[in-house]
């Protein structure tokens, strides 16, 4: 083999602390090296031309560039050697900048280390093989998981772009958390009024198939070709027939059913349409509270239904959908704030969450938009808002800021004053986080125009006393303890990944953090991609964020899918595992550990052998480390390639001891 070595000065970035010329000179003596030189900027236009010319003139069949990290310019130089007519995988990089020149000033040691890194790269390259990407067809349909505002936006953008969209929503209506909000900050416009039209668009869009009251059971396949099993949970109402007339709701005798949509503030009927603008506007039965399900008697709804849509025998139904990409937009849930025993741990009726308060404020809520205490229905005159309940609190394992609470608390303080002009609001806060257009101005308005009393400090305890609640906290600015007697206490509870998010992430084979939020591919540069090709995230599934950001991410994810689908064929990464059939003994330990289900059994002349599904293999190499006989090898990182790097280092050690 004829290898060319190119040592980059990177101006003085490398040459300042590495004797670049010496490295190039010494590289000439390495096995297989037929050409070595130093170059000022390897990545520059002339630098790349130099590499191409050397490859052509010297008849090289591989190149090592010693410069910066391969994470930076690896792809650049792979294209360079490809332009010179070589296979792009006949290339290796030695990282002599980030790993050498930038972390020490000892030029002698740096030079020796740089040469070692070059030596390793050469040894590995000598065992590289040309690899070729394969093309495969893609299914240009997209699955959107979650019908909150992020999912709605993503679905509409994809559908408008001409893609077929399958939207799966866990509850019986789309709308998500936004549909529960009364108003939105900082404009204080009606949440449902701006979301409603979008929800209707989803229902009416010819390219969108909506499965509400449905969840994903299983996802198989890979980018371009996923198979998804959607489980439609029984609603006991045939939605093809249901007109949403509401006759059943009126007659349902079971009126004490937990009201999920209203965050369990008040109760509702066992057969129910969550709210007037629900999409689909169809009734469904909560079997847990329905008298018919509990006792076998009743059946009133079936009797009054004008279209005979009620079906108590309904079974779950599995629908298989084939898609080429997935957008996860399953949102968030509030953390379980009852760990805060000092706030009553859920025992005090008038200590409620911010989301419950939204329902109390909302005209479509259980109180018709009148703020009433859950305990006695009285109008509160003093409302205390406690921020950061389950945010920025290591003691309950929630060290992060949930981001939007400061803003909605200000909004709620404003709305409280609007609803009850003679009321007083107190807000206990740690810091006001209001970075956003018109955001800080908004919190100022809450304080200055609406007279909300902001107290900077934590609340140490809340306890009932004489029909009211004593809220004891500290005012860190005044340096005193404060006690406020409140009629209602609203907790700004922090956000965490939606219930079941972790489970779904595992089905999607993407990572999630310990709070259930999904990991994006890069925190800055790839905010809606995940590390699994073809799977994208949008909205709070990735972390707490407000409505505009969620909508932006929905659109961003849609744009990514549209870009992906702009090609008819995708190229697979050829750095995948490959089985040496002669040597495989069929023990299938590789398949047991493969995180991607990319290895299956096959029968070759009556013997069981492993087979890699190349499009599913992500190239982690776990199978290679697992296979006892080394019969399955991750291409480009084979045992022999890695051993060559190790042996090269140990050899140089050996020579030193001998010399």
């Amino acid at each position, binding site marked *: 083999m004829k290898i060319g070595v190119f040592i980059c000065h990177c101006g003085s970035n490398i040459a300042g602390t590495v004797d670049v010329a010496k490295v190039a000179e010494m590289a000439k003596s390495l096995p297989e090296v037929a050409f070595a030189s130093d170059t000022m900027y390897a990545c520059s236009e002339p630098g790349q031309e130099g590499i191409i010319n050397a490859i052509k003139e010297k008849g090289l069949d591989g190149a090592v560039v010693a410069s910066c990290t391969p994470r930076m310019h690896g792809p650049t130089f792979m294209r360079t050697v490809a332009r010179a007519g070589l296979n792009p995988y006949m290339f290796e990089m030695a990282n002599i900048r980030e790993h050498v020149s930038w972390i020490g000033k000892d030029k002698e040691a740096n030079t020796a280390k740089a040469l070692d890194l070059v030596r390793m790269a050469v040894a590995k390259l000598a065992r590289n093989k040309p690899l070729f990407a394969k093309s495969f067809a893609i299914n240009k349909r997209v699955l959107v998981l979650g019908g909150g505002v992020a999912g709605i936006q993503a679905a509409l953008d994809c559908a408008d772009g001409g893609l077929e969209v399958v939207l799966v929503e866990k509850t019986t209506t789309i709308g998500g958390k936004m549909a529960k909000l009364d108003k939105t900050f900082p404009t204080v416009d009606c949440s449902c009024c701006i979301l409603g039209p979008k929800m209707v668009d989803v229902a009416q869009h010819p390219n969108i198939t909506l499965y509400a009251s449905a969840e994903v059971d299983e996802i198989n396949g890979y980018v371009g070709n996923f198979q998804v099993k959607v489980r439609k949970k029984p609603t006991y109402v045939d939605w093809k027939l249901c007109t949403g007339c509401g006759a059943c709701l009126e007659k349902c005798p079971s009126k004490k059913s937990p009201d999920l949509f209203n965050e369990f503030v008040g109760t509702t009927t066992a057969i129910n349409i969550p709210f007037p603008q629900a999409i689909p506007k169809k009734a469904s039965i909560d079997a847990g509270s329905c008298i018919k399900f509990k006792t076998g008697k009743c059946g009133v709804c079936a009797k009054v239904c004008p279209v005979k849509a009620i079906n108590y025998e309904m079974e779950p139904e599995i629908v298989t959908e084939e898609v080429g990409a997935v957008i996860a937009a399953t949102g968030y849930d509030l953390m379980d704030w009852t760990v805060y025993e000092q706030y009553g741990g859920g025992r005090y009726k008038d200590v409620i969450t911010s989301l419950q308060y939204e329902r109390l404020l909302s005209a479509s809520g259980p109180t018709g938009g009148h703020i009433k205490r859950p305990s006695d229905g009285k109008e509160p005159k003093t409302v205390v808002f406690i921020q950061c309940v389950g945010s920025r609190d290591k003691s309950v394992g929630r060290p992060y800021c949930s981001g939007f609470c400061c803003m909605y608390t200000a909004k709620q303080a404003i709305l409280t004053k609007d609803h009850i002009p003679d009321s007083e609001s107190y807000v206990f806060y740690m810091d006001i986080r209001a970075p956003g257009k018109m955001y800080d101005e908004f919190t100022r308005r809450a304080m200055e125009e609406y007279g909300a009393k902001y107290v900077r400090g934590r609340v140490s305890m809340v306890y009932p006393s004489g029909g009211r609640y004593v809220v004891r906290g500290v005012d860190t600015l005044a340096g005193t303890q404060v006690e406020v007697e409140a009629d209602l206490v609203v907790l700004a509870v922090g956000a965490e990944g939606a219930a079941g998010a972790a489970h779904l992430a595992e089905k999607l084979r993407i990572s999630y953090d310990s709070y259930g939020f999904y990991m994006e591919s890069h925190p800055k540069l790839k905010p809606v991609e995940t590390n699994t090709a073809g799977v994208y995230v949008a909205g709070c599934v990735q972390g707490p964020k407000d409505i505009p950001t969620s909508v932006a991410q929905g659109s961003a994810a849609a744009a990514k899918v549209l870009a992906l689908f702009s090609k008819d064929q995708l190229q697979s990464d050829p750095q995948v595992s490959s089985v040496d059939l002669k040597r495989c003994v069929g023990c299938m330990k590789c398949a047991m550990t493969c*995180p991607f289900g990319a290895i299956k059994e096959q029968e070759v002349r009556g013997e069981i052998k492993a087979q890699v599904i190349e499009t599913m293999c992500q190239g982690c190499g776990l199978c290679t*480390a697992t296979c006892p006989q080394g019969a399955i090898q991750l291409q480009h990182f084979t045992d022999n390639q890695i051993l060559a790097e*190790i042996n090269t280092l140990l050899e140089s050690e050996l020579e030193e001891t001998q010399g």
Partner: protein
Amino acid sequence: MSKELRIIGFLCNWCSYGGADTAGVGRFTQPTDLRIVRLPCSGRIDPLFVLKTLTGGADGVLVSGCHPRDCHYSEGNFYARRRLEMVKRFLPVIGIDPGRFEYTWVSASEGQRWQTVVRGFTEQVHALGPIQRFGKDAAAMAAQLAASHA
């Protein structure tokens, strides 16, 4: 620090190699002993690489991957954790100080942590000194011990 020793690092591409890059970008000075082998994932590390490297004459081996739960491939480092812990615990029985091998997790953003890891490990290996190699070194040692027992 005394004369450079031979320390070989196996780093996953997505987190720790990136972390080492971040350390470089941040100019976090480190000892020069370490040579890094880049791998896609800590799960790619066959424990035999560690054993082969140490018995082959390396003075120290350092493995670093993504923090558990942060694996680019979801599960690679979970398997690696068990296997690497086993290999670390295995070393004493073959007469190699377990302090010559460490495995840890460094994310792509933890440049400073990478510096701490490299400094700490290099120091640890230097405290142990050059390794006794199987073959010549150990044969001499065996002879010496036999003589002292006789």
